[in-house]
């Protein structure tokens, strides 16, 4: 009987959330992208809107929206390279009404880049929010000369480096081998050849790796405890550690750090578009950007975003990037259909290979 009551309760809850009124903004976003303070200020400004946040990551965001055909959330924040193919395949977003978004203050380079990446049949599906890079994190005192993706495999750091076994390291290693993986996206046969070479390289490299990190927390623990001296990393994780230990710095690889842009996209069956547009415009205001960046560790996609960073993050960014590094950024190219499968197989091959 109790089970039945629970079931009935669950059913009612589902029904109620299914017909959520325009007063609820259901946000599907990254762990740190909705700080309490920002939500409080937003709800103060728009008392009739209540914000509900679900934390996720790129893959799980897409899986969640795919399961419902784009229902259940009113605003999502996938990365710019994950929208085009996913939309073509699963149709989970709706076109944005750009007239409702204040784009005047956005950094034109990022806005145009995201628009170009996410336009389908003349409709734009996303605008930029936060951006950052993937590169290397190094303890200066123990690995001063490490500055390329390939240096993670340098035998002098044997057992003292780490990486995440995901697509970033495949792309980084390809760049370090002097190739341009994004250029071969057009010809998937060539990309497969490149992936095979990358896999061989990373399999030989396995001996050098202490462990593959799975999330920001275990990476931070390994780095702070000194168990590893260098790793592939998100810049935001490195910036956070910099405030605890100034010897740990972010190093953009010499072939260029890989840049991602997290965007705003509205799910196809989102039920609170107006509230979603209000949230987008709200969080891109300069005074909110500082709070947001303090939480995310990433830069907002508006003009002069670097000056709006909190002081400690500004210092970390200055310690990491020169203007030349910024020019050298490699933005992730749109992932064409099929590439996820090819990369997935390559990663499995690397994981399954044995080493000591």
């Amino acid at each position: 009987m109790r089970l039945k009551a629970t079931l009935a309760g669950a059913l009612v809850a589902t029904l109620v959330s299914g017909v959520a009124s325009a007063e609820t903004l259901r946000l599907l976003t990254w762990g740190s992208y909705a700080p309490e303070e920002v939500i409080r200020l937003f709800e103060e400004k728009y008392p009739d809107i209540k914000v509900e946040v679900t934390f996720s990551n790129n893959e799980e965001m897409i899986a969640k929206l795919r399961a419902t055909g784009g229902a259940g959330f009113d605003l999502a924040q996938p990365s710019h390279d994950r929208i085009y193919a996913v939309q073509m395949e699963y149709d989970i977003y709706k076109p944005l009404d750009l007239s409702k978004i204040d784009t005047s203050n956005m950094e034109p380079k990022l806005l145009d880049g995201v628009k170009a990446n996410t336009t389908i049949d003349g409709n734009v599906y996303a605008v930029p929010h936060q951006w950052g890079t993937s590169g290397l994190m190094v303890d200066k005192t123990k690995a001063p000369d490490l500055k390329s993706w390939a240096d993670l495999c340098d035998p002098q750091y044997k057992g003292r480096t780490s990486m995440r076994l995901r697509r970033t390291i495949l792309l980084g290693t390809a760049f370090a081998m002097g190739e341009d993986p994004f250029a071969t996206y057009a010809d998937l046969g060539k990309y497969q050849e490149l992936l095979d070479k990358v896999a061989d390289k990373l399999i030989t490299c396995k001996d050098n790796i202490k462990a593959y990190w799975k999330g920001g927390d275990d990476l931070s623990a390994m780095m702070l405890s000194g168990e590893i001296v260098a790793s592939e990393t998100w810049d935001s994780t490195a910036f956070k550690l910099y405030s605890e230990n100034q010897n740990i710095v972010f190093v953009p690889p010499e072939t260029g750090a890989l840049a991602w842009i997290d965007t705003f996209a509205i799910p196809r069956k989102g039920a609170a578009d107006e509230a979603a547009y209000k949230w987008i415009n709200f969080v891109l205001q300069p005074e909110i950007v500082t709070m947001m960046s303090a939480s995310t560790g990433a830069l907002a996609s508006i003009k002069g975003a670097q000056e709006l960073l909190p002081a400690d993050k500004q210092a970390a960014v200055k310690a990491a990037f020169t203007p030349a590094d910024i020019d050298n950024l490699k933005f992730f190219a749109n992932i064409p259909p099929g590439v996820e499968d090819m990369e997935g197989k390559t990663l499995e091959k690397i994981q399954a290979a044995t080493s000591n």
Partner: protein
Amino acid sequence: MSSGRDIRRLSLILLFAPFTLWIVLLIALPHMGMIVLSLREKVAPRVYEYGLGNYIAFAQEPIYWNTLMRTGSMSLLVTVLALLIGFPVAYYIAKIAGHRTRGALFLIILIPLWVSDLIRAFGWILLLRETGVVSTLLQWSGLAGGPVEFLYTDATVVMGLVYTVILFMIVPLVSTLDGMDNAMIEAGYNLGGSGFTVLRRIIIPYAMPGIVSGCIVTFMLTAGSYLTPILLGGKNSSWFTEQIYDQFITRYNWESGAAFGFLLLAFTSLVVWIGLKLSGQTLASTVARS
């Protein structure tokens, strides 16, 4: 008369309704959906065809095979270890401990279950990492010259899994052994049997249903576990559930993920069936008596 029977029938229906709802809504329907999903193949964006492609892809890729076999053999090892460690514990609780200590012992064994898998895995990480408690203690006491890394090996995974599932071995064993009359053991000794003979010819045969059902539960739980192998495992370790997660989430390939899920179910069912045949038990007898 007849109204009494109606009431009895109605109460029977009401009694079984939640159970039937649970079986149909949460087990049968989702699995049927998964079977259909696993038989779909993507031929182009938004275009699917029915076929066995996902299962064929599994058969043709040795990596998947090896991972499944690895998961299966390590799960068997975990089951055996859990039985070897769990049996004496269960015997002590059921037969040797006094009435009052029995409850306390049982409680002590249950307590770890109140903490989630994730927290327990993190506990192990804190203890075993290179800069962790065990390594520091060893260095402090002079037993180790430098930091020792205990994490990221298959042995750690097996140990973590045994710790997680051993409870599910002990509980059915205790309840079976509890029902055993002490006179049977005494009679065994009176007839001149040694401790080993009594164990082999009286206790184990009596406890067989409990042993088998404990083994089934621990094996199924181990083969289907996700967090412990992922968190404690090293760079070479892979667990079949991780493959399923990767197919579903990072590769957006629900079709092949569903096929993998069924292969895991079929594989574990096969192992359990073989186990039942070898031990001469049936599912009905073990479930009924333990």
